[in-house]
């Protein structure tokens, strides 16, 4: 089902859980696993120096250094590579998000696995304030394939996908996430939980909504859910819908815990990659960092086109 899987890593402990997951997944689908590390942040002006993403130190890029980095990657994941050798290690310099997207295109990747990390406050410009967070954002937003973000070790059997949760905010990107989740559910014969949380925080500048107002919002959301998704369900019966109210990411996580969800699919719908203020603290980011199961980010309708062949 997945032929080419990309594991994008900072080769730091932040990515260890994602590494195990990536190898397991490659093994399950007998896929080729690309282990990819973007190790140096170049400058805007001319320079032969790059900033090592992991250490923050300045390095001069050369072939010799490139080899050293590859050896370090092989060493870090040696136990996993011993178990599954259909993998290829590669690294490059560049802006991590951009280079990962380029790699996805070049190798025709059909799933990306990344660790979630929150390395904040580098001595950098606004755009680089949060290098890894930014990377996750940029990749999840633009990738033409699902991006699975792994932030915590998972103890249960990951491949028995009995319950898939799709969180929606009714956007176009959410519809892409839904369509993917539905197809994925059909293939795995999983139950699909379609979920929306009415955000009652910060409405009307701190005014606490009355109960009837909340109920009205919940009802409106239910109606929208039926309007948008009912015609999409295509006769699949193993679907459950729910609309809760509260802080969206908390509600999603609570629901996932209660329903024993194995995979969360959401759109990384954040307006624009340029509008940083909208991104930080977005719902999916909070879900990613706290979830007990993998979170798949799907944003683009063409994700589905890539899967038409074998998910139909």
């Amino acid at each position, binding site marked *: 089902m997945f032929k080419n899987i990309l594991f994008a890593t900072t080769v730091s402990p932040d990515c260890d859980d994602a590494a195990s997951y990536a190898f397991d997944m490659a093994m399950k689908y007998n896929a080729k696993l690309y282990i990819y590390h973007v190790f140096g942040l170049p400058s805007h*002006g001319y320079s032969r120096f790059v900033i090592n993403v992991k250490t923050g130190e300045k390095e*001069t890029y050369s072939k010799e250094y490139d080899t050293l980095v590859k050896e370090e990657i092989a060493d870090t994941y040696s136990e996993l590579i011993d178990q599954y050798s259909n993998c290829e290690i590669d690294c490059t310099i560049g802006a991590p998000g*951009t280079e990962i997207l380029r790699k996805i295109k070049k190798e025709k990747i059909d799933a990306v696995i990344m660790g979630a990390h929150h390395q904040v406050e580098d001595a950098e410009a606004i755009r680089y304030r949060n290098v890894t967070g930014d990377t996750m954002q940029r990749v999840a937003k633009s990738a033409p394939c699902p991006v699975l973000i792994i932030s915590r070790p998972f103890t249960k059997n990951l491949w028995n996908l009995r319950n898939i949760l799709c969180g929606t905010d009714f956007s176009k990107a959410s519809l892409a996430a839904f369509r993917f989740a539905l197809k994925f559910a059909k293939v795995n014969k999983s139950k699909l939980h379609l979920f929306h949380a009415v955000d009652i925080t910060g409405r009307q500048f701190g005014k606490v909504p009355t109960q009837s107002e909340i109920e009205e919002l919940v009802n409106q959301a239910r109606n929208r859910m039926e309007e948008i998704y009912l015609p999409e369900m295509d006769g699949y019966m193993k679907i459950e819908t729910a609309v809760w109210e509260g802080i969206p990411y908390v509600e999603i996580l609570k629901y996932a815990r209660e329903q024993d969800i194995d995979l969360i699919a959401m759109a990384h719908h954040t307006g624009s990659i340029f509008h940083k203020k909208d991104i930080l603290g977005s719902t999916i980011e909070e879900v990613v960092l706290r979830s007990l199961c993998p979170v798949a980010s799907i944003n683009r309708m063409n994700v589905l086109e890539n899967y038409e062949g074998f998910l139909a």
Partner: protein
Amino acid sequence: MAEGKLCNRKPINTEEELKELMADRGGRKYYEEMESLDVDQDALWSSIRKTFLSRLKTWIEICARCGMCADSCFFYLANDKDPTQVPSYKIQSTLGEIVRKKGKVDNEFMRMTMDTAWSKCTCCNRCAIYCPFGIDMGVMFSYVRGLCFSQGFVPWEMKIGSGMHRVYRAQMDVTTEDWVDTVEFEEEGIEDEYPGMKIPVDKENADILYTLNAREAKHYPEDISEAAILFNLAGENWTVPSEGWEETSLTMFAGDWEGCKMQVENVYDAMDRLKPKRMVVTECGHAYRATILEGPYWAGLKSGKTPIESIHYVEWVAEVLRSGKLKIDPSKKIKEPVTLQDSCNYIRNGGLREVTREIMSYLAEDFREMTPCKDHNFCCGGGGGLNGIGRYHKQRNAGLKVKRDQILATGAKFVIAPCHNCWDAIRDMEGIYKIGIKWSFLKPLLLDMAIIPDHFKPEEE
């Protein structure tokens, strides 16, 4: 006459030579070889006799060593008024000596000259406006760099930079295929965001031909997307060329005048081929200087002008904001105190001081000028290629103190730096001196503030 395998008088012209030079990590072997590189004194003197003409001759002779240029140089100020940092001393002890000795100088002298030309002068040309005779040490040091390059005494990174332009017609190894691929990739991304937006490649007779810095294509393609979105929001009829898109010129920093000509003709060819009305160059200072101010002379254009009218990105921004083609949401204007870094290459040397102030009036509620500012502003500290030369990082870092103090004195914690080199110098300055500032190009700010016309809004909104 002894020449090294890596360090020699021949410019890089093939990919193999370039790769071999790049494989020498940090230029260790290169600089080792430089210590035994012979000076071809005859060639040096012959070159001086052909190119050291009346203006430079006069300048070297009439310089009265009055020292009026001393305080104009940020290196002099940042190094506790070290007399060896006085511009007139720097030029007289290098070019002056070479001329007086009729080219009979040795290896050690040439290495000293190289160190002076690249680590004690960024060719910012500030001294020229303080010299009672109008002598421009920046121009003279550019000339010195040319002499050094022809003799093989050029910093490792600069030799690589010049080779890149000669091999790829770009300062980085970005081929035409890579470039077009990147544009397509970015176009897909922006179409997702703004339905119907395009990045037209090789469109003939467009109003604007947009050219940029290879770093944007190689590492920061979001810059291309930002530019594309802004051109589209302003309703421009624009295009990028598949060939001749690279504006920068490390050949200029390296003193490789032959390479400069090759590079700039590549861009002018794109103008001839696509026949646009105007060219706009990205937020880069030296690219503007190379292609618009100096390029026509390198290419031997008698008019001294580019084949079509060419403007800097800041001129385009001021124009669309003034005309209302691009509208700013007043509620999104920058509220906090903000200051502006004047890029030497298009402010002092290109006269664009007022348009940048006009832009600030549209974007910032509390704009604060540095002191001094506009034509008199200091170099960021990393110009002339200095940011990228490992051998001189210590000198570069010391020089950044002047800019640091200028920024601190404004009270602003936010610096707008519409130039790649200034951006880097300010980033490095924050890394070293940690004064708690942030900085940005114009494009991301404009995108944050621009009002999006309805036809570009996604359906769901």
